């Protein structure tokens, strides 16, 4: 059992800013999540959602500000941090010439997973790919690849799971399966952060909702099942084009 440092919030971001060249993508984001939270992050295209989630999972460093995931700072404890997070993106991170089994075996070795063979079989069963362990990934459909990508992301039992548009390319059945897996994950008490375009899919499971717009977190609330119906108008109110609430000093 790995030892985790003590922490107040499992995910903590303080004043996170990021620039690409001269373009400010994130302009100071504060976010705090407790263990077991399921946050869905909405926002229009180009709002900086993907950049933000990449900063949270240490693929990018924040330009300024502080990020702390499970008590680890991505600047100093990157490796320890990597061991406790999983990331599903719209890239599958799978090697097309390797089989499903080989892909999982590679990632399992990288995460130093004990009893890897059984674990892989269990995972393939879970994502419904048990019949094709030895087929090359390039022969898989997009949906199957996405399932395998999910298996890859959870092979080391992460404490926190980040999902960047996980429903892209999945058919109805696949989406239901993914939802089941996420429910299982949520019920195990893992913390999940998901990005979504799709309001219905995004609101199904979460207990917190946030809206990101041009690099700022303009809305962040806990949400109960009864409030979900009312969320749509709120969302459109927040993403409609209007001057941002700040003054420019000239």
């Amino acid at each position: 059992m790995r030892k985790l440092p003590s922490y107040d919030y499992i995910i903590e971001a303080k004043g996170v800013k990021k620039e690409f060249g001269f373009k400010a993508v994130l302009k100071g984001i504060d976010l705090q999540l407790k263990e077991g939270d399921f946050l869905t992050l909405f926002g229009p295209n180009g709002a900086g959602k993907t950049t933000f989630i990449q900063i949270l999972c240490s693929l990018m460093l924040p330009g300024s500000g502080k990020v702390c995931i499970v008590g680890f700072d991505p600047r100093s404890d990157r490796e320890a941090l990597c061991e406790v997070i999983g990331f599903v993106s719209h890239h599958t991170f799978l090697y097309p010439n390797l089989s499903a089994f080989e892909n999982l075996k590679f990632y399992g070795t990288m995460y130093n997973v004990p009893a890897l063979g059984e674990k892989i079989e269990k995972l393939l069963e879970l994502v419904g790919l048990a019949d094709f362990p030895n087929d090359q990934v390039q022969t898989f459909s997009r949906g199957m690849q996405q399932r395998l990508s999910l298996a890859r992301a959870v092979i080391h039992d992460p404490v926190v799971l980040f999902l960047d548009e996980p429903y892209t390319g999945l058919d109805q059945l696949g989406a239901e399966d993914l939802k089941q897996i996420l429910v299982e994950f949520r019920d195990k008490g893992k913390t999940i952060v998901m990005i979504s375009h799709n309001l219905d899919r995004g609101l199904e499971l979460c207990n917190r909702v946030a809206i990101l717009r041009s690099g700022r977190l303009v809305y962040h609330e806990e949400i109960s099942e009864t409030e979900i119906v009312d969320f749509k108008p709120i969302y459109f109110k927040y993403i409609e084009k209007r001057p941002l609430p700040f003054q420019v000093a000239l």
Partner: protein
Amino acid sequence: MIFIRKLWAIVWKDLLSELRTKEMILSMCLFSFLVLIIFSFALGTEVMDLKTIVPGILWVVFIFSGLMGLGRAFGAERDKGTLSGLLLCPLSPWGIYLAKVVGTFIFTAIMEIFTLSIFIILFNLNLLPVLLPIGLIIFLGTLGFSAIGTLFSAMSAATKSRDTILSILVFPITVPMLIAAVKATETILAGKAVAEVYPSLKILIAFDLIYLLIAYLTFTFIIEE
């Protein structure tokens, strides 16, 4: 121990992936074969002193063909979109770099063995008696080339015009290594004592160590965004 296992996992998946397509190794070997043929046509049949030009040709072929393999080290990962997945793994950037150096080294070495055999046939050269020292020189040269080339491969993977910039970065930097390697090969082929190549070998070793050291210190900056 875990570090070695993770390192080997990366090398193994690269080898396996290459074994399935054979795309890179075939193109490298074919390219070196073609360059050799072109050299033998360009030089004509009655070359005055083969032994003085052979080392130069040999290393030019190695560098040109090796360059094809270099770009793939990180370029392929970026093309497939797997680079982020690799970077997410709990392994230090240095480990990832080292694994890629080993991979590049293996591919380049396979190409070099192939090139040498063709070379022996085409230029009617008897390398057998000097195989050991030549092997050592090629080993050191290839190590340095892979070390610096992998670093630049990661750099150029972040740029728009990948292959052009890779060759512009690699060629001037590898000149000292090339000079030392050619000089050493020349000395050996001329049938001189092995002791005479020590200065060249020293430079090759210095080159390898300096670049591995620089990569150790700076590789984390290359992949961070």
